[in-house]
């Protein structure tokens, strides 16, 4: 079996309308992939930056996969939340990105979006906050059923990932 190590961090987020953010992350892989070691989901700390520009999570990632096939190459999915001073959480964005297939060190940026909903929901979002959320969060990393969704772009998530592959060349795979 070929193996993949994903080592790095979710560095943080930028360009969101407000800071004091945290993210829930997970990694999704196809059926041929087996998690040998490490966490495949988690939640970052809440960061309230002093300089108001970059929200730092420095969330370490260390995951070891074994695989029998290339189908379903792992991908990260994220949900970014804003936490206000009362401890209430509001959804600020969904996003996903594939784990790079080339071995080496990669700086990855993941763009995010949130659903806007109908006109009425947009008005109520402007005045009282809150907003629609996905009933089925799997939609974040699938390409089907997206066509009816209305969304707005939000900030981006920064990742620094090191990819180590093992035995891929033994099976004739060019990454």
């Amino acid at each position, binding site marked *: 079996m070929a193996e993949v*190590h994903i*080592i*790095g*961090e979710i*560095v*943080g987020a930028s360009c969101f309308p407000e800071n004091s953010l*945290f993210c829930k992350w997970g990694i999704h892989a196809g059926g041929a992939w087996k998690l*040998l*070691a*490490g*966490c495949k989901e*988690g*939640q*970052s*700390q*809440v*960061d*309230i*930056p*002093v*300089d108001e520009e*970059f*929200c*730092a999570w*420095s*969330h*370490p*990632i*260390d995951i*070891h996969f074994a695989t029998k096939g290339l189908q379903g190459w792992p991908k990260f999915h994220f949900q970014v939340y804003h*936490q206000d001073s009362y401890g209430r959480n509001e959804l600020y964005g969904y996003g996903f990105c594939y784990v790079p297939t*080339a*071995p*080496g*060190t990669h700086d990855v940026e993941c763009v995010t979006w949130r659903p806007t909903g109908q006109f009425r929901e947009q008005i109520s979002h402007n005045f009282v906050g809150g907003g629609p959320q996905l009933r089925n969060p799997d939609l974040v990393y699938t390409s089907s059923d997206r066509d009816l969704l209305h969304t707005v772009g939000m900030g981006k998530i920064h990742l*620094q990932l*090191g*990819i*180590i*592959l*093992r*035995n*891929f*060349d*033994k099976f*004739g795979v*060019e*990454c």
Partner: protein
Amino acid sequence: MQGNISTFNMASNPSVFLLMVTGQIETGDFPSISDDLYVKFNYVYGQDWVTTAGLEEGTSQTSKKSQDDRSLYAWNFPLDVTFKSTNPFGWPQLVINIHGQDVFGTAVVRGYGAVHLPISPGRHVRHMPMFVPESSSHFQKFTSWAMSRRPEFRDHNTVARSEGREVTRVKSQGSVRVTFNVVSRDMKKLGYDVVPSTLSIPSAATASAMASNPTTGAGAAAVPTANVFAMKTS
């Protein structure tokens, strides 16, 4: 202890790989802080990892801000460590704490941060964001203000762990610039690829066979490309 890497003994069937990291904790950028700061570092790594040479922890000198308009703390503090392991899981992380003094002269931690050592050979620059924990309740916020004691992590290696972070609220203030030079050994022999160029390309075997066997004059143009492939497979 000086080591496996300096003696270059040719192990034909290695069971471990080596990771040698040199570098320095260069500078710190803390716009909202004005006291004198020093850095403590250590490494956090998994069970399969062992250090074979170098210092596992250290403390820098205490530095003031530079007096130009960059206002950086320049520590210029060397890092030099060699690890060995059988498994990349649990890859070492550099953990940094920044220490300073508040207005009353009590020692306070001005920042925690952690970063994985780079996995691929070469020179790498990392900007580590630095943060301190926030009080988890308004009551704690008040007591910490009244007693002028800031919250700290009980274990400073918390920042290198992925679990249990959902309960922490932090305030990030500034960053530290660290440079690394990474050399690894026997990773490829154990089957690990950390850079694209070590992955052999299946057709390259044919290409190198063609290169070593130039039969026609038309091969003159083809040989250089074939050599590139041959180098990659070696």
